[in-house]
């Protein structure tokens, strides 16, 4: 498709958004946001709820088309009209809800939408079962029974199945939408390890999170969003974890938060006192 640009492609980042904007009716969801990710690199997108993170990844994933600005994949301007098109360009998105069908077996979920087939439209079930098992094993998940409904796996395991699926299907760019949001500390650690693993395999990763403590250890670049705008784009050596946290919350708001938390701590003590005295249960 892009032979003449072959030499240029290598220097171009895998994904580059330049001044991208998106409106929903009269709501401006995203305004002049830029982002890039190259092979073997993790770009973290941070922001509070409603900052525009979801809109941003929906554009990258091909669910929505951007209204302004430029979206380039390996140097070529694109405007995807379906997630399928993004997938065909090697951009795989692992959504917050993981895009899995809870009642379906793990292996059917793994190959959903990209089923392996033999003649007559028959699915190659043996191959799919075996591949699912091996791919998960490679990520350190030992599932003996890939026939169990995926809804029976733990949140971290499901997340890893979704990541393994994206990697297996030749993703060059992995877009992870809040993969650690619903997880406990230990399971979040497992997922972060896979992010590093994917980076070491040479994938570009776009990691969306609202937790700077998850983003900082694995990220190479950080894009901070607020109310649909970029309020900072930094390489790792330009910023510390403290600065990142402060930037995300916004200095004065952080102080307010500290006050609030102090208040809450007081309330906690009071309710414990009340419990001790037998006033409430």
């Amino acid at each position, binding site marked *: 498709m892009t032979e003449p640009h072959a030499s240029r492609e290598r220097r171009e980042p895998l994904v580059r958004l330049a001044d991208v904007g998106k409106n929903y009716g009269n709501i401006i969801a995203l305004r002049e946001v830029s982002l890039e990710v190259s092979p073997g690199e993790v770009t973290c997108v941070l922001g509070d709820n409603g900052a525009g993170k979801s809109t941003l990844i929906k554009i990258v994933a091909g669910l929505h088309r951007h209204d302004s600005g430029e979206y380039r994949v390996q140097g070529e301007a694109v405007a995807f009209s379906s997630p399928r098109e993004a997938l065909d360009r090697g951009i795989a998105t692992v959504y917050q809800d993981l895009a899995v069908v809870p009642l*379906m077996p793990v292996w059917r979920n793994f190959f*959903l*939408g990209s089923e392996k087939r033999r003649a007559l439209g028959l699915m190659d079930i043996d191959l799919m079962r075996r591949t699912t098992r091996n791919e998960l094993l490679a990520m350190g998940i030992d599932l003996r*029974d890939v026939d169990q409904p995926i809804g029976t796996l733990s949140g971290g395991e499901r997340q890893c199945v979704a990541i393994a699926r994206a990697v297996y299907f030749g993703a060059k760019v992995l877009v992870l939408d809040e993969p650690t949001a619903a997880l406990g500390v230990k399971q979040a650690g497992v997922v972060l390890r896979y992010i590093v693993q994917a980076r070491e395999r040479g994938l570009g990763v776009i990691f969306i999170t609202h937790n700077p403590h998850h983003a900082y250890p694995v990220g190479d670049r950080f894009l901070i969003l607020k109310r649909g705008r970029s309020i900072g784009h930094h390489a790792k050596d330009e910023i510390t974890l403290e600065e990142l946290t402060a930037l995300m919350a916004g200095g004065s708001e952080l102080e307010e938060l500290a006050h609030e938390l102090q208040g809450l701590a007081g309330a906690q003590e009071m309710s414990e006192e009340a419990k001790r005295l037998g006033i409430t249960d």
Partner: protein
Amino acid sequence: MGQAVARPPLAADERVARRSPFRRLLGRPELGALIGAVVVFVFFSVVADAFLQTSSFSTVLYAASTFGIMAVGVSLLMIGGEFDLSAGVMVTTSALVGALVSYQLTLNVWAGVLISLVVTLGLGFLNGLLYVRTGLPSFIITLATFFMLAGANLGVTKAVTGNVATDSIRDMDGFATARNVFASDVTIGGVNVNITVFWWILFVAIATWILLRTRAGNWIFAVGGAAASARAVGVPVTRTKIALFMGVAFCAWFSGMHLLFAFATVQSGEGVGNEFYFIICAVIGGCLLTGGYGSAIGAAIGAFIFGMVNKGIVYAEWNPDWFKFFLGAMLLAATVVNLVVRRRVEQSR
């Protein structure tokens, strides 16, 4: 939150080991229906002496097949997460189209059969298209088409024939061969079995094959279980849903042709209310009303239960008015069993 429950690394394996064969059996969608079928069979064997005769059994199978053929399409649609309330009257529409086209234009009945197929598939396509274009619940869409078809069946038939039934096509070209295909009796070991029983078994086999062995089957489960997720991983959700509505239409066409060639005339007011029987067959057979779970074999067992109750009451010489009571009770029991089964499946961790 915040507190991670430390789990030994081998926890996943231990969990798998706990899934006993019994649990696995509980996870089958057909289980509830199978137990129900055995209970109903034993019950009527005891209370109705005539029930165990082979000729009675063939009558039960015939009743089961006429509803079972529709239940194949309806169950696939239900697994795909949708309803079709127009399925009952669509059978009549299909038969009417076949009869009216053949008689009024004096064509070979096979021309009527083919035109009916095109029209009925078109109706299914329309149901599907309306659903995916409007995004309204399929319950509403097909409720509307149900009333429209029921009205059109009567209106058009009266306008064309001046009567509520179509003229007999018994003497027309091709009737004998069409009857052989759609409504003949096959004698096996001295027992007459209607050919619909064999068609039913074939359709169930094809549907099961599609569901379990083909990509389309994967898509059907997925669009019913979580349509948004399915779309996100590249499953053509709208195409799958439209195809499922057309599957119901195909079954309606076949049932309509059976009606037409069994009786040669068609009563234009027939079919109203049957859509619920098809849904009951599917639900008793373990299909979840909310989609994403179920099987064509389960729906076939559901239809078999339906046939047993339908005819068993007659053989037991009870007042057939009680048939509907039985059916309702069975539906309630089946849904409760399904609920329990699904909870087991989802919590088998």
